[in-house]
């Protein structure tokens, strides 16, 4: 699935191997997100989580691969399918879960919910409910990096559906014009809610969407965390050297509906099943670790640990109180 489109390098790179430590890190991080999202789905079913809840299950390799390429201080911005990005950014699972539950211990004191969460400490700039909003906001974060003359890179995620919004191209133009250090990562999970890409996009190769602005683009298999990390390494390096923005289209897949209330009848069960069986990002890593001689037991321990973290997060969220009524009126103005 690796394909060049922007012309940065001519040869399709070989899949760069991970060290065993890197494989284990990727496994641990992706599994944490998977278990967290499974739990969030359960809590939604129990009525603990309300409103909209968009699960990241299936897409874990994208954010984890990018995070493994990022440096401390690089900023993350995404739209509403954001739980995985927050965990990858190092935000505390229990406070993310508490926010999903609308509790006072949540990152936004229960006032933001699933789609609107932030952490200045973790350099996570949202969490935006408007699908294309991360593009200019992430470019603005990069503007601040350039303005200050530090070498931080803004890592900006949005979906292929958002890629059809005008503001994305306004951001591309300025980012290229001013050589802003921003990597735009299109997470192409093939369905904008219920609309398959070919029904909504005249150009379904999203890595070409920056070509009009001479933004180098690369279309990659977003289900393979090694490929994501390698592409992100190259993109981040490109940005950090002052070359301006870079566009990655990570081809991925969400196993669940668009949100919890979406039965996903617009695609076949077979299609989902095939992706799960043949391309699952976590199973790919597990298979390589086993082949490398890591024992099932060790992997089970990692899984058990992820389940424990998530279970504690859920317990915390359920037990935590709702915000004090006085919180209705706070944080309106600084």
């Amino acid at each position, binding site marked *: 699935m690796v394909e060049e489109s922007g012309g940065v390098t001519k040869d399709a790179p070989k899949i760069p191997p991970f060290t065993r430590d890197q494989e284990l890190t990727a496994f641990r991080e992706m599994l944490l997100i998977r278990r967290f999202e499974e739990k969030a789905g359960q809590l939604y079913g129990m009525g603990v989580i309300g409103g909209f809840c968009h699960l990241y299950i299936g897409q874990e390799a994208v954010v984890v691969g990018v995070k493994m390429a990022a440096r401390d201080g690089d900023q993350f911005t995404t739209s509403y399918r954001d739980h995985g990005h927050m965990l990858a950014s190092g935000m505390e699972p229990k406070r993310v879960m508490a926010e999903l539950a609308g509790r006072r211990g949540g990152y936004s004191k229960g006032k933001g919910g699933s789609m*609107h969460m932030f952490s200045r400490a973790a350099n996570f700039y949202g969490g935006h409910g408007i699908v294309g909003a991360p593009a200019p906001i992430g470019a603005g974060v990069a503007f601040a990096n350039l303005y200050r003359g530090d070498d931080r890179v803004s890592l900006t995620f949005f979906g292929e559906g958002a890629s059809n919004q005008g503001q994305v191209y306004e951001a591309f133009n300025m980012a290229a014009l001013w050589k802003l250090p921003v990597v735009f990562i299109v997470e192409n999970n093939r369905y904008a809610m219920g609309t398959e890409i070919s029904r909504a996009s005249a150009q379904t190769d999203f890595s070409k969407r920056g070509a009009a602005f001479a933004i180098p683009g690369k279309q990659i298999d977003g289900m393979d965390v090694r490929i994501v990390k390698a592409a992100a390494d190259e993109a981040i390096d490109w940005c950090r050297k002052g070359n301006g923005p870079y566009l990655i289209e990570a081809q991925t897949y969400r196993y669940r509906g668009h949100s919890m209330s979406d039965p996903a009848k617009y695609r076949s069960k077979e299609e989902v099943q095939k992706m799960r069986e043949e391309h699952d990002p976590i199973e790919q890593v597990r298979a390589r670790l086993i082949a490398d001689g890591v024992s099932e037991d060790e992997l089970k321990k990692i899984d058990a640990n992820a389940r424990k973290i998530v279970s504690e997060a859920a317990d915390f969220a359920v037990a935590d109180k709702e915000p004090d009524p006085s919180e209705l009126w706070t944080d309106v103005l600084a």
Partner: protein
Amino acid sequence: MSVNVLMPALSPTMEQGKLAKWLKSEGDEVKAGDVIAEIETDKATMEVEAVDEGVLARILVPGGTENVAVNTPIAVIAEEGESVADTADHAPMARVGEEDKAEKQAEVAAPLKPAIEVAAPAPKAPSVAEQPSATIAPEVPEGTAMISMTMREALRDAMAEEMRRDPSVFVIGEEVAEYQGAYKVTQGLLQEFGAKRVVDTPITEYGFAGVGVGAAFAGLRPIVEFMTFNFSMQAIDHIVNSAAKTLYMSGGQINCPIVFRGPNGAAARVAAQHSQDYTAWYSQVPGLIVIAPSNASDAKGLLKAAIRDNNPVVFLENEILYGKTSDVPALEDFVLPIGKARIARPGKDVTLVSFSIGMTYALHAADELAKEGIEAEVIDLRTVRPMDIATVIESVKKTGRCVAIEEGWPQCGVCAEIAMRVQQEAFDYLDAPVLRVTGKDTPMPYAANLEKLALPSAAEIVTAAKAVLYR
């Protein structure tokens, strides 16, 4: 037949300018398209081209003359075969501006150029007269020295002072840098602060509003200029959804110290899509501060406050007020408090409440009412959100009558809010229903007469004030 050359208008709001110099002398032949003179306004220098062929027979307004009203005859061109001496009948005319003189001028010009725009006086701003007198901000100590300056200069100085003070402040928008501002509000900033801090953008309001918000999240202090607030509708998603709500949505973690500024409301003869007043729109949004100054002093003190504020501020200027001159305190660091109204004119009979250019109408109306022995108290809200309704209530308790004025549309407007709050908090003090004078409930028309009808007027305010006084 000789032809009068008239002082041209360089912009929809220009009323007068300087005839900087003549490039042709009396007796010179001119062809259509020849540059014959240069004129200057506070915004720009422009060349005057001859429209007719002939001989420059007489120069009526010498080079270097200041304050030449638009449509004043500045020269006479004699046509081929016409004796220069025949043009002597064209006596230099005094400034043309008043309606009667415009008619006279029309007689002269009409046979030559039947097009109506030649004969008609220049499209005038709804408030052509000089700024009516008003008290300076109460925050200024008595005896403070004053400098007379235009609102345009006051806004520029406010930005320059804050940019000197805080390196995280920068200006971004269309034509703010090399062009020196579409309305020349950012004049000189590029030269002093460089391209890193005075950033020209593509025409991309949605995008650069979002970039500004992202930079503000990351700790910078952007001043985002909209060429006019009409174009902010492209960007309103980021102003409302991203700038205004994120502090709340982040539980107080991520504030957005950004100023969105530019001219708002009707200019003159730019019609429906360029004449909208957004005060009511933005003032409905929690998380935003909305400021709309009426004079140079408030503009300077409040823009400095807005830039220092840790919240997103929508700073609504007015193109017609840009060129108006008023006193600004000669203080090293003049910062006004946000959210405080100002009693612009004390009175006891009726309270008039407005903001921005509405104050021009209100103060003129107060002058008119005074001639009939009615002492109106005129309150300038200055900040529309948060609204200093307490100052209005105090006044209404004294006068028992209230008229609110705005250029925006009536339904769900700022006046509607004022009337609601006054009836809620001062019902027992009211001797008459609260009335409002607003822009009419139509898109803005282009035709000069219809535009005048669409805007509020001092006469309407006088009528409303008399109505609440039952006079």
